């Protein structure tokens, strides 16, 4: 707690559910800016984000958020005051309108003065473009709109730390672009960590990307550095190469192979997706892109 170089310091974090290890000794330091968390389903992304959001306790290891220790009651409350969280799934009480939902969360976030609270609720709903739809029942909203309602509540009080578990799931391309806009609008001093299945989100949004697989970090660096790990391991050919981990026919009729290139292969510029496939391995799911 003496020197905190980042918003979040993780050291040796482990978590198991019924003897099945989900997180296996994670170390991580996060500072301001947007960090993307990439990994296949079941990699432990949600578990890690829930621990960061203080809704789940790690089995062992040290976690510091804003230099505070979430194991201590007073510290945990203080962290929660400065935190915005979008869970993977939001239950949504049946009868709430979008406004009532965000207002309810604002009450839980200790905005007790009604007028000021309502101003804040309108502000965050405006950011996600739902200010006009705010008095409709949530159950009557589309999936993309519900996702935006969930994002809106995370923005209440302009938190210093945003923990977003698949914030873009269910958003159409246009809404995804709007989400990118709003994330750039929250300001560079905010620390944001988001999980996603979309490598395009990572490229567009994140200064840093962390790949989580099997409860361990496989990569930590910039998106460009992630792509660079696949240099020399992506090549084009007329037919599928037997040595490729994964190969597919692209739009121009040629086959893009990812794996260990044979000598003399026509190498291609790797993408972050190629690098990700190589990292997490796709032996078990041939033909698959990134699992949806």
């Amino acid at each position: 707690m003496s020197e905190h170089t980042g918003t979040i310091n993780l050291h040796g974090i482990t978590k198991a559910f019924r003897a099945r290890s989900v997180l296996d000794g994670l170390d991580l330091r996060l500072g301001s800016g947007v960090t993307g968390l990439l990994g296949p389903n079941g990699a432990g992304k949600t578990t890690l984000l829930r621990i960061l959001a203080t809704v789940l306790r790690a089995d062992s290891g040290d976690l510091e958020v804003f230099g505070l220790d979430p194991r201590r009651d007073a510290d945990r409350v203080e962290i929660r005051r400065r935190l915005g969280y979008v869970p993977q799934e939001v239950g949504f009480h049946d009868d709430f309108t979008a406004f009532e939902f965000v207002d309810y969360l604002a009450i839980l976030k200790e905005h007790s003065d009604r007028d000021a609270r309502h101003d804040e609720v309108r502000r965050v709903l405006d950011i996600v473009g739902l200010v006009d739809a705010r008095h409709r029942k949530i159950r009557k909203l589309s999936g993309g709109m519900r996702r935006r309602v969930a994002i809106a509540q995370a923005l209440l009080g302009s938190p210093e730390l945003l923990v977003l578990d698949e914030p873009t799931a269910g958003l159409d391309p246009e809404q995804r672009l709007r989400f990118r806009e709003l994330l750039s609008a929250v300001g560079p001093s905010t620390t944001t960590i988001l999980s996603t299945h979309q490598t395009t989100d990572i490229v567009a949004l994140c200064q840093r990307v962390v790949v989580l697989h099997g409860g361990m970090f496989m990569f930590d660096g910039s998106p460009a550095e992630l792509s660079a790990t696949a240099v020399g391991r992506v090549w084009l050919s007329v037919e599928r190469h037997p040595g490729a981990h994964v190969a597919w026919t692209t739009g121009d009729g040629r086959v893009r192979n990812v794996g260990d290139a044979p000598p003399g292969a026509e190498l291609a510029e790797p993408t972050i997706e190629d690098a990700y496939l190589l990292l997490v391995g796709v032996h078990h799911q041939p033909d698959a892109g990134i699992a949806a």
Partner: protein
Amino acid sequence: MTTDWHVDDRQIEAYLADQATETVAASVEAHLLACARCRAQLSARTDDLDVDASWAALERRIDNEIADPVVRVCRTLGLPEVELRLVAPTASLKAASIVGAVLALAAAALLSQRATSTGVSLNRLAFLIVASLLPLVAVVGAIGTGSEPEPELARGTPFSRIRIAALRAIVALTGALAVGLVASLVVGGPWTRLSLWLIPALSLAALGVLGARLASPRVVVAVLGGAWVLGVTLAGRLSGDRLAAFHLGPQLVYLAIGMIAVALVIVRPSLLELRESS
């Protein structure tokens, strides 16, 4: 209405300045009702800021409205809004069960009035059992799993879970006791007296608070309620007096159990916290 005639600028100016003759004004007004073009013409001559201020006030008023009629009435009566809003999502769920309880009590009461035999009828016993179980059901429902509309999100907020649970428990308990009391008064008869069912009811509710931490509301109610019904029945069988479980001796035991449970909650308020789902 199709017409080539429109209000001209001069007439609008005069109308807005209240200098138009009455007949001109009347014609302008009749025309405005039917002509969007002239309404826009008029709008262009009025202050946008006024419209914006009026809209902001209207928007605030709409946002201030509370759909839930019970909460609305309570707020009008001056009850604190934040507390109301925290109880409301749970309370509305509970409303249905309270109605159910009232019906159950009414049925029990009706049956007991029909009973003509001397001594304590089965129906009267039924009334006492239902009245003493009511607070348990209400309290466990109000703080158990499922009582929080947004559990995952709520857990990540700074608001004290203990305070919320205490609030919900108190409201549920008050409601359940009120229902029992009213039913007692309506039904009448010495065997419905508050003194008979109040202590078992409170003790069961206190045990329910402890139980809500360990299991789902249904399980808690089933276990505690089942044990209570079984105990009362057995005591009646064994002693030959159906009301044996409501006599002074057993009542003192319930009192002791209840006080221990309450003391535990006071010493360790974290017992009120919502059980983690995973």
